[in-house]
């Protein structure tokens, strides 16, 4: 009839596949840690267009005009975080502080992406993993 899970089915294959998943996850972790030097600047983009690049080591507050509302970004002590956001879920505020290259805070409703970048030169070769167009 229909395929029902067989109890006697060997666990080995499942363990192998799950192991592959865990190892792949750890490789991603390794990749993130290795490429994650402390960034030098904060790049803000709205709807894919860069609207500003700010020095990560200069404390300041930035008001970002997103597609559906404003986001308030704070740069402080070499870290950046979203202080307030005019969006329904406020998830970006909960994403916490970022300081390492490649880390980002994303606000989907306003299409705002705040990303930590390093030098422009290492930027291009360093943190791009996949480009899907």
């Amino acid at each position, binding site marked *: 009839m229909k*395929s029902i*899970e067989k109890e006697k089915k060997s666990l080995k294959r*499942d363990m192998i596949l799950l192991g592959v998943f*865990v190892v792949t*996850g750890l490789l991603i972790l390794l990749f993130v840690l290795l490429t994650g030097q402390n960034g030098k600047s904060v790049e803000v983009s709205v709807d894919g267009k860069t609207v500003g690049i700010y020095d990560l080591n200069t404390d300041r507050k930035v008001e970002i005009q997103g597609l559906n509302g404003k986001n308030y970004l704070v740069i402080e002590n070499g870290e950046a975080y979203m202080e307030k956001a005019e969006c329904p879920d406020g998830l970006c505020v909960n994403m916490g502080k970022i300081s390492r290259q490649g880390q980002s805070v*994303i606000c989907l409703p306003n299409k705002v992406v705040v990303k930590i*970048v390093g030098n422009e030169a290492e930027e291009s070769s360093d943190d*791009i993993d996949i*480009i*899907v167009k």
Partner: protein
Amino acid sequence: MKKGRKGINTKQIVSYGIMIALALVFSYVESQIPAFFAVPGMKLGLTNVVVLLALYKMGNGSAMAINILRIVLVSAMFGGPSAMMYSLAGGLLSTVVMILLKKTDKFRIVTVSVAGGIFHNIGQIIVAVIVLNTTGIAWYLLILWFTGMITGAVIGILGAELVKRLPDKLF
């Protein structure tokens, strides 16, 4: 799949209706849970229980059909076009991966569900890369990879129990 019969009969229509209704209710329940996960796109994926049930009780095509209908309906009611893109990419990719794994007939339901959870998130990340035109999401991929595994496992355990306990003749 193994019905040996072409077309669709009344019982199947009823089954589809019930499964889609169930998926809608789960989606709604899930949308009411405030963001207890701090990362957007991170969800428990309760509706995947329904997809798993459909996959193992009704067949591959049914699981795909129910999932697509569910996503279109949920997006029309609670989301919007952009939510639909993310859901469709995640839902389609995860369902395809689960169907392929199930076809090998070598893996337990829990494992299939874990793979589904991971690939659901990968599908969403692919859309995020395209829509937001950003590639700085390795960090995000890392978080979603592991949460996909965990939620996939939780849903898989639940789904496997249901597949085992619910009689085949219900479907």
